[in-house]
């Protein structure tokens, strides 16, 4: 799985950071930052859930 974030779309709801803190972080202004675009299989569920709850649809998932 590959993760992409669209930072200009991010509205800083912070839910991805709460759900998958090993994959997502926020910059000083609260906008999403990707810690890794290649999560471990054990992190897939959290990444998928982050993409579902993201209110701005700023997280995209791609298959390898």
């Amino acid at each position, binding site marked *: 799985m590959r993760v992409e974030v669209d930072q*200009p*779309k991010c*509205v*800083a*709801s*912070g*839910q991805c*950071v*709460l*759900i998958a803190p090993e994959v997502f972080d*926020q*910059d*000083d*202004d*609260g*906008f999403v930052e990707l810690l890794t675009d290649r999560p471990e299989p054990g992190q897939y569920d959290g990444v998928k*859930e982050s993409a*579902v*709850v993201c*209110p*701005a*649809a700023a997280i995209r998932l791609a298959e390898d």
Partner: protein
Amino acid sequence: MTETLADTAAGPLEHPMPRAAGCPFDPPPALMALQTDSPISRVRIWDGTSPWLITRHDHLRTLLGDPRVSADPTRPGYPHRTAGMKASDQARQTFLTMDDPEHARLRRMVTAPFAVKKVEALRPSVQKIVDDLIDGMLAGPKPVDLVEAFALPVPSLVICELLGVPYEDHDLFQRNTKVVVRRTSTSEEVLAAQRELADYLDDLLTVKRARPADDLLSVLATERVATGEMTQRHAAETGVLLLAAGHETTANMIALGTLALLRNPDQLALLRDAEDPKTVAGAVEELLRYLNITHSGRRRVALEDIEVGGEVIRAGDGIIFANDIANRDPEAFPEPDRLDISRDARRHVAFGYGVHQCLGQPLARLELQVVYSTLYSRIPTLALATGFDQVEFKHDGIVYGVYELPVTW
């Protein structure tokens, strides 16, 4: 207009509508029934217009994420909540009532203090605020009104600290905030209350500009107003928005949540005995889903014709997003009418959805986690000091809750 079950001979259903007697936690049954019978249908609101009511969780998320749906209340067709809100929405504009790109530009100026890690850093001071208020309750007479003694001061003290507003002035902003969120307030009353709040914050911004401190108003004064990115009046009105939003919502979640837990002692016991912070965090999400204090819904207007769920919403049609009903959608939440703090409720839409989703949600989560994990363990015998049928609910409020919650222990 498409004929639906809801707009046959009797005409569209009224919105809002009273809840069923004895079921103050559940949305009105007739509006709930729309979710099954006619999930996208017209309702009649106070000014005689008939905006669409969106009741299904999936429709709500699709449309609130659609840029063809506008949050601008100055557009014709926008379904205003009340006459007072109509006047105030048209008199002043904050990012809440703007569309992108202007919305994003202005919202981005105030997101920094709401980042998860910055909010998390406030946990010790929120814990202290909560502990001190509980100490005060325990030292004072009983019964006591939980709203006055605890539910309102917690978010009020926290948002004041974050914005840099002296709490000594809380009478001024609590009084005016009440007027703004009361459904029965006239346009004149709402405008006057908002003007008083904005004047107050305008003066405070002048003070902060001369003597900045470590708070959001100082940042706005020195980094946004001083640079000309924002006018001082706009910064003051943004401050009004944050101050008001920080007060009414969390305060009502604390008091109404407490009442719901007292009515569901098994759930209260689960929460009280929880040792894992994840259990508490999950309980907060479930109470947000179940209680839906933002019961007047999200308001929008269509910019273009939009096809959804077999209906066509026309350009210029008003749309109300019933997040309270969507959060009881069995497709999204099995057995939705049951309060179950162990369920995964994270997909709830109590904070809205789309680019306007609540800016303060990390702060709200933190406050509610600290409150729910502290109040019932420190006062395990907490009980309602009046009959359940004596409790008065804010049916007339833009934000739902209780006016008073007499408790004892």
